[in-house]
Each structure stands twice: as C-alpha cells, then as structure tokens.
C-alpha cells in the first residue's frame, strides 16, 4: 500500500517464534523486527526476520512454503493461535501485513497436532495425509485404459460439488485447528470429490473403509463437531463433507456386514 506522499507504510513488530530441533523440546524465541512494509506477505516478513538473523550470525527459522500463491498447501504456520492466521479463506502465504498493527506482538508456531510431529522450528511432518490417499484416495485407472472422455457424462451440479471438495489443498490446517487433531475434513473432502462422481462408484465402499482405517492408524483423532476445521480451512471446505463421509462410511460398513464374506465388496458393487 502506498500513501499519498509516495512513502510505504511500515510496521514495527515483536515476534514470538517457536524454535525446536527434531525430537527435542522446543521454546519460543523473541525478536523485534522494524520497517515491515504493509504490502509484504507474512512469509516475506519471515524472510526479513531470517535475513536479520543471518546478519547476526544466528540460525534462521525453518518453515515450509513453496508456491506462495495459495495453492500448493505447503505453508503451515499457526499465527496468534490460528492456523494460517486471522483472515478467513487464505493460506499463510496469502496473508498480508496490512492485516496487522504497528507495535503488535505476533506469535508464530508450527501446526500443533499429534499426527504432525515437528521436524524443525515451524516445519512439521504431514506424511499421514499422503498415507491416507495411498490407501484409497484414487480411482483405479491404468494409463491408457480410459474410455473416451465424453462417454461419461457428469451432471453439472455433481461436477460442481465434486470440484468444491476437490479444492482442498491438503495443508492440514483442519487438523491443526481441531482439539482432537482430527483429519475428518481432509478425508471428507477427498471422499466427496471421488465418491459422488460416476467414475468413482466402482471403488466407493472400498475407498471409504480403507481411508478411514488408515486415518485412524495414522494417529488422527475423532470428530466431535467443534467446527474449528471449517473456520480455518483456507479453501472454505464445509462441514457437510464430514456428514457425507459418515454417511458413506455407514453405508459401506452395513454392506460389509451383510455381505457373505464379511469383507468389503471387491469393487463393482
């Protein structure tokens, strides 16, 4: 933001930032940072802090980030107690310093969740999400075996609903904001994306049972309807994906119970 006199507005900030080595206890470190332009992004402010630390010969704070345009899902800071900070519907990289006040103290922590152990400072291990996808978050289609695309009509409302769920960027803010460390919003989004599409029907029950089982094994907690996940999701995924996940899970379990083998039906149900 440039003022009328052409000078950029800047902020002086106090920062409390989490410092931790892998497998060791961590603690907050306090730093002052001057002349932060209000047009800078939050991560650019962190870059400034790190450059200041390098000048002083100290180690920088490690944090995850990559695309810096709100789509890769890599950035993961808890800012003043809120995953991705105080502005709804944005990732940390899209949070800009004009949302903070001069002289403010800002607390910066990693995602806090049992299933996301700290690797260093603000970076955590989110491989639990990948394990959930590996167990069923796909439609089985070998390269080269796909039919002509327009042979599978998908009603626009269904396509739009699938797209709403598919907007999830897998950042983990839902888990970090939940008192139980539950991944139900993440899993619900993926289930909604794939389970409502015609292409996803063949594996619908297998997918649901397998993903939920893996989610539990990966150390994510249960959903008790706090709704914090929805409030902090940068892509505004809504709680109804959890309701639909529960419905599909119940459906799959009932079918499993009544099947002759006692095992999930093997596709084509």
């Amino acid at each position: 933001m440039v003022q009328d006199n052409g000078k950029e507005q800047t902020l002086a900030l106090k920062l409390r930032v989490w410092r931790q080595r892998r497998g060791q206890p961590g603690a907050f470190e306090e730093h002052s940072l001057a002349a932060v332009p209000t047009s800078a992004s939050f991560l650019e402010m962190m870059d400034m802090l790190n450059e200041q630390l390098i000048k002083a010969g100290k180690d920088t704070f490690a944090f995850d980030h990559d695309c810096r345009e709100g789509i890769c899902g890599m950035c993961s800071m808890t800012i003043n107690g809120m995953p991705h900070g105080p502005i709804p519907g944005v990732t940390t990289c899209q949070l800009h310093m004009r949302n903070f006040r001069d002289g403010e103290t800002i607390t910066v922590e990693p995602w806090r969740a049992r299933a996301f152990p700290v690797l260093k400072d603000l970076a955590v291990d989110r491989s639990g999400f990948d394990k959930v996808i590996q167990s069923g978050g796909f439609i089985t289609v070998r390269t080269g075996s796909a039919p002509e695309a327009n042979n599978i009509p998908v009603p626009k409302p269904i396509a739009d609903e699938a797209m709403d769920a598919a907007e999830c960027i897998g950042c983990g803010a839902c888990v970090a904001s939940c008192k139980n460390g539950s991944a139900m919003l993440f899993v619900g989004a993926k289930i909604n994306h794939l389970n409502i599409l015609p292409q996803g029907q063949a594996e619908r029950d297998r997918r649901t049972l397998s993903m939920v089982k893996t989610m539990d094994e990966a150390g994510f907690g249960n959903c008790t309807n706090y709704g914090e996940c929805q409030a902090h999701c940068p892509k505004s995924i809504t709680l109804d994906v959890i309701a639909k996940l529960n419905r599909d899970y119940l459906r799959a379990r009932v079918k499993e119970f009544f099947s002759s083998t006692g095992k999930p039906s093997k596709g084509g149900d």
Partner: protein
Amino acid sequence: MKEASAPPMNLDSKIPAGPLADKWNNHKAKLRLVNPANRRKYHVIVVGSGLAGSAAAASFAEMGYEVSCFCYQDSPRRAHSIAAQGGINAAKNYQNDGDSVRRLFQDTIKGGDYRAREANVYRLAQVSTNIIDQCVAQGVPFAREYGGLLANRSFGGAQVSRTFYARGQTGQQLLIGAYSALSRQIGLGAVKMYTRHEMLDLVLVEGKAKGIVTRDLVTGAIESWSSDVVVVCTGGYGNVFYLSTNAQGCNVTATFRAHRRGAGFANPCYTQIHPTCIPVHGEDQSKLTLMSESLRNDGRVWVPKNKADCTKPASEIPEDARDYFLERKYPSYGNLAPRDIASRAAKEVCDEGRGVGQVVDGKRLGVYLDFSAAINRLGESEVRARYGNLFDMYQNITGENAYKQPMRIFPAVHYTMGGLWVDYNLQSNIPGLFVGGEANFSDHGANRLGASALMQGLADGYFVLPYTVTDYLAGEKSGSRPSNDAPEFKAVVKDVNDRVAKLLSINGTKSPRYYHKALGKITWEQCGMARDKAGLEGAIRDLQALRKDFWENVKVVGSGDALAPELERAGRVADFLDFGIMMCLDALTREESCGGHFRTEFQDAGEAKRDDAHYAHAAVWQWTGEGQLPARHVEPLVYEETQLSTRSYK
C-alpha cells in the same frame, strides 16, 4: 565474448521417417518391449513429482518396473504444476469449431515461432486427446455443460475453443489426478517415494546414467541410488530471475548437474514472460503472482493515451482517452494475442511513460486489465462464477476490489522453454538419462502458448516416456545395474559432500538471498523482455564477478545435519549463477529475435525479426569445465511439412 570450443556432441534427433501424421505410430510399432515378468528386475528413478514426473512414475509402476520417485517438497502433490490456473489444450473438437490434431500442431509450432522440433510437436497434438480421457477417468472435475459433457474455453494464440479447465485451478486438479495414480502405486509398494529429497548430482557408469545422489533435507544425509535409467522431470529455471511466478523451491540444480556431467542444455535463452501478473510492489518482494491468462477472454487491456492521466484513478479517465493497445495493434486476436507479444506491448507502453500504478525504481510498471465491459455484458455474478477465485487472490495481495476498479497487471517470468536437449525419444545425449516436462526443450520452441505446459507434462509422462524408456531398457541387460558401492558412485558422493562442506565453511558476510536478488536484477534487466549485445556482454561479466564474490563471501547459517533452508538456497543459487551466464551467452549468440527472445537489434517496428537462414536450429550448450564458458553446438531444425512464415496476429 566467444563461447569455448569442445569436442563434437551426438545430437541425432532420431526423428522417424514417414509423413508427420504417421511418425509416432510407426515409431511405437518398432520400439522394443520388455517382457512383463522381467520388468520388475529394472529399477527406474524418476526425479520430480509434477505432472510429468508423477504421471511417468505411476505409469512405469503400472507396467511392472521397480520405481523410485524423489521430490524436494513434503508431498508429491505440491510440485509446482499445481499452480497452473487456466487450462489444458486438447484437439477434441468438442466445440465443432474446426479444431483438429493438425490445427493444434500448427498453432503450437507457430506459437513457438518455428523454433520447436516439428515431429515432437505433432506427437504432442496427437496424444493431447488421450490426456483428457485419462484425466476424466481419474476423476478430474473439469468444467461441464448442463448436458453433462465437457466445457471448453479459448486461450491465447488460438482461434478455436480447445482448452479444458477446472475453475481457476486446472493445474492442481490435474496434478491431484496424477498424484492419486502415483499414490495408488506407492500404496501397492510398486513405487518407493522419497519426499524432502533433493537430487544433487547424476552418476554415470561407462558413459550411461546409472543413478543419482540426493540430500535428505530433513536429516542432511547424502545418499546415492543406483538404477537402470534416470528420468528427470524437475521443471524449469525461471527462478534465475529471482522474481518469477515459480515456487520458491523451483531450481535448475538437477538439470544443471546433469549438464555438468555431459548433458547438452538447449536454448536456455528461451524464457517466457507472462503478460498478466500482479505488478511488483517493493524491495522485499519474494515472488510474483500470476493472474490466469483466461482473464484476457473477458478483460480488456488498456493504458491512458496521455501520460498526464497516469496518476488519475481509472474511473476519471474517459473512454476516448484510453488506449486499448492490444486491440489496436492486433485486431484479429486482440486481448488474446500470444504471451510474448502481449508482454512486449505492455512493456512498450510503460517505457513510453504511460504505465499505471505505484512507482517502483522510478517507473510505473503496470497496465489495466478492465472487466467493466464484461460486468456490464454478463453481470457481476457471471464474472464471479468464471473468475471469482482470481479476483479474491488479487484482493488479498493488493487490497483492491477488481469488480470496482480495473486490475493492474505487468509481465513476469513464468515459464522456460529451454531445457536439457532430448531426442525424439526424450532421451538426452547421455544414454539412460531421459527428460520430461518443462525440464526438456523440445516442444514449445521460442514461446509457449497458454494451456500447453500441462498438455506437454502429461503427454511426456503418460504417453511418451513409458514407450521410449521401455525401448531403452530392452537394450540393457536386466540385473546389470551397478551397486551403489561402485567407485563411480563413491566419487560423486564425495563431490557432493565436498560442495556442501564448502558452502557451510565460507562463513562470509552476505546471505544466499542477497546473491539471488543480485543475480535476478542482472538477468531481468539484461536478459528479460528485451536484450541487446552490449547489455548481454555486460551481464556475463557482472555474473562472473558475482559468482566469484559468492564463493568468497556467502554466509550459510544452519548445519548440515538438519533442515537447513539457507544451505538449500545457497546450492541452488550457486548453480543459477553458472546457469545465468550460459543463458546470457545463448541470448548473445542468437543474433535474431524469435518468440520470447527479443533482441532489440533485430526487429521490424517492434515485431520480432527471425533469421531462418542462420538460426533455424536449437543451440545446445556443452559444459567445458569450472569457470569456463560453455561450448555451443547446433541441431538444425528440419521442417518437412511446415512452411516457415512470419508470425502475424494482426
């Protein structure tokens, strides 16, 4: 300034004989196969997990090979293919508007200003239709019409609607498709996935690529991996300009390390400047954000006719005082002129002093992208439905509401057409080293059309590499790969360890980011949208001095045994410094203008002036040693069915 001389390179493009339309099918019929029972005996390393890497790794595993895939991100789903917004081209002709494989081929080869390899581009257009089938079957939620069939939109450089899209995040949806196929194979144990691993070198045994050396970014461990073939899909080198639309981690290290081991690097000066990005706001900026080219379907680009109006709010500038310069200069394509042309036109009007927005470094570098006509025609809700997420992103970054006032945009580095040289099989001049996606050079010539990068990444990964890599493996004895205890591996591991130790020990005064910024300032000013001889020669000298300064005065904090972002950046910047010199040298020695490469000495009233008699070739650079300038070789581009013409979008 002269490039070095060196021994000849084998640059046989291996283009199959026969008419263009039959080449790929004839070639596939002749490629050798590997028996399904033998495939598990071959180990395929794939580096990178974007569209090309994920698609290739998943496809190899489905075929039965043992696959290892490496990426520097914490999950393969985060590779920068994810950030592509607008769409993916395919010659489906669902719109009945005259599209065909040949038309897509012609648009792409013309868009590349006749500097791409004809046979590769034709194959790309051919397999484009298979890509859409594959992605739809995977559950990619493309936009649809009410009848349930797929929708299309138009994109720059084409007069048909052939672009498939998923809101403003086509890249994420396609990548999730490829990632889900890859994840399935990881879950089945067919792919071993190594996240937070960065490839730091390539290992050659008896002249063939037989493995890589990586650094585990979490523990700092330097490890080597042996394989029967190495497939590098590590993206482009846009971050040589420091500010670009690339992700922070995008780097040239994997391809440049391969280059240092003997792989030719083709056309590094072909870089794409995307016209619709949010302008620079200040010194501490770390990246530029793209606004999808699709916005140019409904937005009109203009600046004030009079310099005096540049400080006024847009709303106070009457219609007749506005210069819709793309519509004026290129009436038949208008706001959908190709990227290089639209970018240069925006630079021109800003150089004339008619730019808008804030002053950075003494200049107003911005033009308006105005939606008021579209909002009047379609209503705000329809504009919101089409572009809502982009308008939201614009507001997050600039604090401005683009429904109420025009967006301000300016060109920014976005994509790099150059890359490792590959033959028709996507194999580099090092046997056993294959290169896919943005990391290779073959399909986009001197300029890439919108919605063609996703197409190329997936074409390479799903439909080309599985065939051509198999052919290579069929000639390698199964079980013959060396152990990673072999002396060749130990030597490369030592090189990598020495380099990491050197970076950590210099302990100078300036941060890696300082050098990255200094590098970007030189490359952007002298090798950006407009280039000339004197500027490029100066840039090469400046970069050589900066490289020397780097190796004496860089300060890398952190330790080698944990997450060390400064060490990662330092290694990447060191390679970018060497690479930047090669890029400027390539721009200097290509004495013509073509596509994104605009030499001010070679123009026709602002339009690029090609020199087909002397430069209808790919320039392929060969590493000649530390601190030396690389050597230039050429692969002549042979056009069998294409008439080279002056590209006109007027």
